[in-house]
């Protein structure tokens, strides 16, 4: 656990730094995936443009969502509406805003949705790995108590190294898809839905080792149930592909 890296007088928030690095590396991977195709179906600059539009809309939506959730919190100092503090963001609403903005931008630019999902799959896979690695840095999403030989001593007790499980599996999915990327036809959505299916499947399995996370009704974990539904949806889409099949 290393949430803060002190460099001289500057305290760097390591989890945030990891996520930013993940964004940069992921964009590079996505651009490379597009560049590797013999005749790129869209200009290479589309990746960074779409990412920028999504990020800006996401940030704006996340702040707006937070203001709507806690309107009275901003009455003490309305200037806080413009605060750079990331703690004043509603991630769920920000994500929805980013998806809506990306959809509108894609439609206006005449970009096929399945193509964009495929192109951005490497970015999502890298961000997923970075997200779990950032949990290792912050200490969030820690594991259940265990006496297994590979348990780690965290917060004064032996626990499943759940953040390490999560990071390794996300990195494996990234590596496998990147290695097999040429066996997918860019634009039919299969790359994205295979990524989604593997990620959802891994969450169904790995969430069981988490001590954190919301649970409902006698310990049924809501994260596992949601992941199972996403897995079922992904498999249903892969069973009924709209585009061409993989080569």
């Amino acid at each position: 656990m290393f949430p803060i890296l002190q460099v001289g007088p500057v305290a760097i928030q390591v989890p945030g730094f990891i996520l930013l690095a993940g964004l940069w590396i992921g964009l590079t991977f996505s651009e490379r995936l597009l560049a590797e195709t013999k005749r790129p179906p869209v200009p290479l600059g589309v990746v960074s443009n779409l990412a920028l539009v999504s990020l800006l809309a996401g940030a704006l939506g996340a702040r707006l969502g937070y203001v709507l959730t806690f309107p009275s919190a901003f009455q003490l100092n309305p200037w806080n509406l413009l605060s750079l503090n990331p703690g004043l963001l509603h991630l769920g609403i920000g994500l929805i805003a980013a998806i809506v903005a990306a959809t509108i931008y894609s439609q206006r630019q005449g970009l096929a949705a399945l193509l964009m999902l495929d192109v951005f799959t490497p970015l999502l896979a890298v961000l997923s790995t970075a997200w779990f690695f950032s949990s290792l840095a912050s200490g969030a999403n820690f594991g259940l108590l265990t006496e297994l030989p590979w348990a780690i001593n965290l917060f004064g007790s032996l626990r499943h190294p759940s953040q390490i499980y999560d990071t390794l599996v996300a990195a494996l999915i990234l590596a496998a898809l990147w290695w097999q990327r040429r066996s997918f036809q860019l634009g039919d959505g299969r790359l994205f839905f295979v990524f989604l299916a593997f990620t959802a499947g891994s969450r169904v399995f790995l969430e069981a080792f988490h001590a954190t996370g919301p649970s409902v009704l006698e310990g049924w974990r809501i994260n596992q149930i949601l992941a199972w539904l996403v897995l079922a949806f992904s498999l249903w889409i892969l069973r009924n592909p709209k585009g061409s099949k993989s080569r």
Partner: protein
Amino acid sequence: MSRLIEKHFNLLAVGALVMGGLWIAASRLPPSDLAETLAVPQAGFLAPEFTLPSLSGEPIALADLRGHPILINLWASWCLPCRAEMPAIQRVYDEYRDQGFIVLAVNMTLQDSQAGAQAFVDEFDFTFPVLLDVDGDVARLYRLRGLPSSFFVDAFGTIQEVLIGGPMDEALLASRVQQLLEAGQ
């Protein structure tokens, strides 16, 4: 290999979903097993107990404040972000103190000085309790990694969030206090 998967896709998909469902059922835990009973300075755990003297000399124990949402703020008078966020903490304290919100501003006196803490408090006329960690006990107990460090503790004594670094602004503080108040109901 891929032909084999395509040929038996339905079987594999149904198998994966059935296995997943069984795993979800097998790995469920009673919520009581997920509740942490350890005192660790980490979100989701009980806040470690301490008793410290205030600037006025009165001892204050965290255990006596159970039932109130609490902000434990570790600070020093030489720390610029600490100085920057204190007026915001005072404004939020003024706004929510009637609803039971308590601020414990723990001065890292081992790394600071009582005179420095007193001068800073006098300068801004803070009304919340300012405690003196003369021996560094709270710094050790809360595994101080940087200043300021803030721990948002709910009415049940559980740490809901840890924020290292600052300054925090009013909206952040007020929204977190509102969440603590809701959690305590």
